[in-house]
């Protein structure tokens, strides 16, 4: 333990102050004393103690008030109350109000030293926690810069060249070689996407998506999302059904991140579906909100996992190893939806499937809802076809 801890003792009894000074003489601690509450509080500012002893029964400012003011000044200062046997009850009171411990009078030098040691251990822990918290904040702030440079830059450079090589070499290489190039692109794209997701969840600045908010039609986003899981669904022989109310109300939001949410949920739905089953996407207007519901007939989520699936880094205990996610997707989804003032819910039954629902508030100056959708095809055309 570091040597130069500072201890302040506030007590009106000179005997107590003197004996404490005597006990700590020659120790590594720096000691200061004050004979009443007001003097003690003045000393706190100039002495900056790590630990403060406060006598509960003093003339002038009562001990409990001194205690509260110390905590208000700096809650990381550890406080211990000094009390007579008759006032054990008020010692308990004091501890309820944040005092770390109490020292009953009369006390032996050993008892005094022990309480000091324990209180300073507490102080050390508090300071360490603070330092760690600060470090975490700094890491968070620097994360974007580190990620972009050390991880993302080299990957982006590789990917950029693969993009070009694929087109430059087409016609000169065999179709098998071309497929391998495409696979490389795909794998790197996945890795880039993973980094992006981590970055966004970890960064506190995800709120910046609010800058891109505009009035949007959800329908094309739903079709984009479905399109992106289409090939995966085909491979597993999963049918994708879509049914959207016509017309869907517009919402205020950022189409990029909302699409990300839908892709994420649909991806999970397909990933956790049994082959040959179906995934159903529905959307409708309800009480000033647009509801998007995505249901699968897959493995479902256990009751144990269900409350945690929107938490950071949570990946279900159930399910096969190869189906494990990165545990960040749904946490990110729920944050994105929160920023849109919406909500996301899940219902699930193990072995039967899950239904995710996203609620988004309708755009306040909703006016274009009756215009035809931009997507260019109607939902009836697509119903059951994808």
């Amino acid at each position, binding site marked *: 333990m570091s040597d130069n801890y500072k201890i302040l003792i506030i007590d009106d009894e000179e005997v107590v102050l003197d004996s404490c000074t005597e006990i700590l003489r020659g120790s590594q601690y720096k000691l200061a004393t004050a004979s009443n509450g007001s003097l003690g509080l003045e000393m706190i500012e100039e002495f900056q103690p790590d630990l403060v002893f406060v006598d509960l029964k003093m003339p002038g400012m009562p001990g409990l008030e001194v205690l509260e003011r110390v905590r208000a000044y700096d809650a990381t200062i550890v406080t211990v109350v000094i009390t007579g046997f008759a006032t054990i009850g008020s010692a308990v009171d004091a501890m309820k109000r944040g005092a770390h411990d109490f020292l009953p009078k009369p006390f032996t030098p050993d008892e005094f030293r022990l309480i000091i040691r324990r209180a300073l251990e507490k102080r050390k822990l508090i300071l360490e926690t603070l330092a760690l918290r600060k470090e975490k904040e700094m890491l968070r702030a620097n994360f*974007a810069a580190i990620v972009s*440079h050390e991880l993302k*830059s080299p990957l982006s450079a590789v*990917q*950029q*060249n693969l993009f070009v090589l694929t*087109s430059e070499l087409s016609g000169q290489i065999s179709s098998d070689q071309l497929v391998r190039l495409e696979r490389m692109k795909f794998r790197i794209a996945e890795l880039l996407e993973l980094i992006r997701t981590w970055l966004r969840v970890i960064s506190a600045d995800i709120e910046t998506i609010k800058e891109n908010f505009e009035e949007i039609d959800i329908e094309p986003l739903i079709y984009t999302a479905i399109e992106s899981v289409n090939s995966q669904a085909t491979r597993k022989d999963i049918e994708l059904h879509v049914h959207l109310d016509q017309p869907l109300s517009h919402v205020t939001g950022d189409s990029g991140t909302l699409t990300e949410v839908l892709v994420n949920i649909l991806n999970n739905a397909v990933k956790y579906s049994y082959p040959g089953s179906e995934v159903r996407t529905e959307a409708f207007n309800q009480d000033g909100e647009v509801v998007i519901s995505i249901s699968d007939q897959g493995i479902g989520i256990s009751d144990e996992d269900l409350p945690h699936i929107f938490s950071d880094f949570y990946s279900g205990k159930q399910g096969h190893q190869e189906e494990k996610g990165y545990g960040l997707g749904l946490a990110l989804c729920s944050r994105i939806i929160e920023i849109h003032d919406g909500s996301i819910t899940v219902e699930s039954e193990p072995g039967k499937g899950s239904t995710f629902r996203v609620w988004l508030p309708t755009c306040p100056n909703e006016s274009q809802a009756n215009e035809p959708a931009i997507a260019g095809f109607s939902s009836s055309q697509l119903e059951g076809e994808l």
Partner: protein
Amino acid sequence: MSEHKRLLMIDDDPDFVSGIRSILEGAGYKVDVAYNPKDGFEMLESNPPDLLLLDIMMGRGAEGVMLARKIGKDPVLREVPILIITGIREQIAFLFPGEPVHPGFVPTDEILEKPVDPDFLLGRVSALIESSEKRKVEVK
């Protein structure tokens, strides 16, 4: 029309540059490259291109952002459209807390995230050049 257009790319990652350069040259653009902000600014001043492709995160810092701000203050150079190519879309907001994701350094600019899809890149390059030329006609 693209064969008459001259582009300047300022980026310190030679591998990334070669990937982008190949796309642009394949489409008939002439592409000059500077691998650091200092050379880049000199080339920009001595012979302003039709479009600047700028990496905002060069070396260890945000030298590209400083360069973009400097260009924004120059009455002549600020008319050059800029395609900002960044490792992370939110980079500027991360580096300068409180700044928007896309502060708009010059009248015509846009942010793209690395890596860039070739067709998308070509589409944005020609759109930016076009809108900056339109702006020049309007100003005159």
